[in-house]
């Protein structure tokens, strides 16, 4: 947390060496998605996951000097994120805690492994999105527009909330099936 006051002392055009290096920024940008999944799988709620991600990012930027270049960046970040999740859970103990500690522990371990294929999965998913029936694709796009929830989408479409939930679940399951098929196909070829 004391890194930034140091920066204050520099004047004029900032030197790159005073901030995190280009490599660090690269890694930071490239791993955001993975950390988001890592957090989301443990807290369960996208809004809360974003909140924890923000906290995590704050810590990453305040502690970038602690990171030793050449070591495993993502492992370092996972540790920070785990700590932030823990803090977050303690703070919200009574109100919004969903999952128990053991759950968090087992999931965290597994999600690290699956996260390694993050990029391949993302490519497969975008292929699969294009394979959806047009109406289904549109529905899923509308659902994941910023600020939209399944509930607000149902209101917008004038459909019963539960039927929208059902459709979304069906489409997500179809996408998952498709992604796994795509990845299996890539693995074979």
């Amino acid at each position, binding site marked *: *947390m*004391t890194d930034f006051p140091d*920066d204050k002392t520099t004047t004029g055009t*900032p030197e790159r060496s005073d*901030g995190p290096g*280009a490599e660090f*920024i*690269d890694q930071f*940008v*490239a791993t*955001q998605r993975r950390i*988001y*999944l890592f957090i*989301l799988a443990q807290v*369960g709620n*996208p*809004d809360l996951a*974003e*909140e924890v991600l*923000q*906290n995590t990012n*704050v810590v*990453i*930027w*305040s502690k970038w000097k602690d990171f030793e270049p050449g070591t495993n960046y993502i492992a370092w970040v996972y540790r920070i994120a785990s700590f932030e999740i823990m803090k977050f859970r303690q703070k919200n103990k009574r109100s919004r805690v969903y999952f128990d500690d053991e*759950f968090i522990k087992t999931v965290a371990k*597994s999600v690290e492994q*699956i996260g390694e294929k993050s990029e391949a*999965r*993302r490519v497969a*998913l*975008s292929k699969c999105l*294009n*394979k959806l*029936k*047009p*109406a289904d*694709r*549109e529905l*899923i*796009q*509308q659902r*994941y527009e*910023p*600020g*939209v929830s399944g509930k607000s989408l149902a209101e917008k*479409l004038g459909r*019963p909330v539960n*039927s*929208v*939930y*059902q*459709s*979304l679940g069906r489409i*997500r*399951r*179809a*996408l*998952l*099936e498709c992604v796994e098929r795509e990845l299996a196909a890539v693995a074979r070829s």
Partner: protein
Amino acid sequence: MKEILQKYPRFSRLLDQLCEQSLDQKGADEISRIVKNDPAARDYYIRYLDIHSTLHWDLAISDANPTENKQEQLQNNTRLKQLVESFVAEAALEPINSSLTTGELDTSEFVSSSRPSSSYSSRKTAGTLVAALLLTFMVSGFWALSPAKQHDPVVKQNQPGEVVTSDIATSDELVSNDSSPSPGDKQNSERMAEPDLPPKLPDIKWEQQSNPISTAQADSKKETSEPGSPSAPQLIDDRQIVEVINQRIKQGWIDQSITPSPVADDHEWCRRVYLDLAGRIPTATELSHFLNDERTGRERRLVDRLLESPEFAMSWATRWTNLLVGRSPNKHVDRLALLKYLRHSITENAPWSLVVSDLISAQGDPKKNGPANFLVAHLNNQAVPATAFVARTLLGTQIQCAQCHRHPFYETTQRQFWELNSFFKQAKVVAAPQMTTDANQQQTAYLLTDQPVGGPTYYETRSGLMQVAYPRFNGHKVSDDKTVIRRQELAKLLVEGDDPLIAQSFVNRTWSHFFGYGFTLPIDDIGPHNPPSHPKLFETLSRSFVASGYDIKRLVRWICLSRPYRLSSHPLPENRQDTPQWGDPPAFSHMYFKPLSPEQLYNSLVEISGNYPHSSDDWNRHLENRESWVLQFVESLDNDENGESNHFQGTITQALMMMNGELINRTISPDSSRFTASLIGHTGSDLKKFETVCLAILSREPKPGEIVLFRKMIHQLKGLNNPVERRRLLAGQLEDVMWAYLNSSEFIINH
């Protein structure tokens, strides 16, 4: 992957609740339990959330569309990087705000500032909070920077029928959605290939547009949101109705760009129609009779003949007996009396509305008055099961959960449940001593009666408040005076109208009997929350069914003579996606597999062995044997809804029974099977005998590979001169082939 969902049937719903943030703590605990204990489920959980998170990230947080194009993705990252770098630089110039160093970040502020409209202002004020700002931009994405995309972007779809392959095409054609009120309308207008058409199309085209499957949701929304829309026609001409089925289903294929499978070959269709109508597979003779009929209209003739056969009445009655009272024995319920009543109804062509009235209002001794068994079976527990059963089996709606609380999905209140329940307040089973012919013996009969009691039914709300409910159904209130027999009043209310629920529910169930899936999933959950796959067709059928005077056989005839019912069960690569078991609305692009029911299997096995009943005495024995045979697969569930589960389809119990059960033995052993015995005794060609086995069991000619096998077996017989030994070996071979065929999935599935 799907095994997980089958293993934990509630899992997918729980995950959806999690994704839609409607999960309660109980649900979370359940997820936790499953995920912790089963590594495969954990894997599924993470992969599923990965989809959710990537969609969320790519569509909501990052850019508009997840892009397949690596280049584009890299560019995105580059832009993001430049931003990061510039903020790092900017931060270095600014004095540091103390809030960062204390670590006390009010994070919620940043969540709200992540909305595109406010991101610029937040940038100004929080210029020093590098990380937070960074996040703001990460969250709102670049799309906040391009004003063109600020209002809700809607991706215009490609022309129908065209397989979308390019993601550029979708993302390039961003249009404002102001003029497109629903996805359905948009797709409709595209189908017309007239993108400039106003969203509200002329009435004349309305009929043509309103039936797609993939847009079932949008379609039904249209129907409910436009009360002025014409209701489906009541048709009376058989041929016209069959044509409507064909057209509507075909339109669904076009809308979903699905190619239907070709027409089933005659063998396949003949087996199917025998199983569906007669409740057993056809004999080799019946099969060849159909195949050799060269006059036109042979399908129609076969369907008509089967519909008039006693076997149709029997199998239809069996199915409904199981639906109405379950298969498990209940000492007050006489299943066979109910079966007899239903069989009689169908033989006499009684309208379904009359059957429903009988079931609802029957009185007296269930052993003598068949329909009385329905309520006798469910009057326990303050008639709660009766209420739920009437709603589910006869009305096709699931209201059982409203017993204790408001229905989670639609507007059925607890009061409505108890209002329906109140109709059964007077119904009571009373014991009555009966004199038999033998004066020394006295028997007790249990009679279904209506007691002269009046007044409302009382129930307790969740908050513990006592409430009253008066008998009322569908807005019609019935006097709660004790002289009014409420069940009779309910029977009248149920059959009122052009398209009452009893008609919809019956049509849906009947359709699903023939196709494996109804218009709604599940079939007994009809309602605005669960739009049907083919709303217009569904409505046309049920209204026409009412107009026909609830003629059960005609409804069946319409379905059996339709083109979708004639299709092969072999899916094409082009219609493999039409797999309703994954939860998609069915498109009926090929015949779905239907496992044989225990009764169908029993009948078929007995028929193969040549011991099928002919006289009515035979039938009674056959039924009794079948009942006890079926029971080994049934287990009643001790719940409030008198539920039961059967251990039949695809279970180990079934597999074991098929492999070495006594019934299989009886079917194939020449000692008990007339079929095997006559084959062995017959003096024809040996190859022909093997072919007959194939026809009798699988209802088809053997394939070349099978014939090769047969020839090999026959070859072993060649060297044997001793006729007794030859016969013994041949018998063994035939039994082996029969056993193998009976244990094939081809046999135990109706396809």
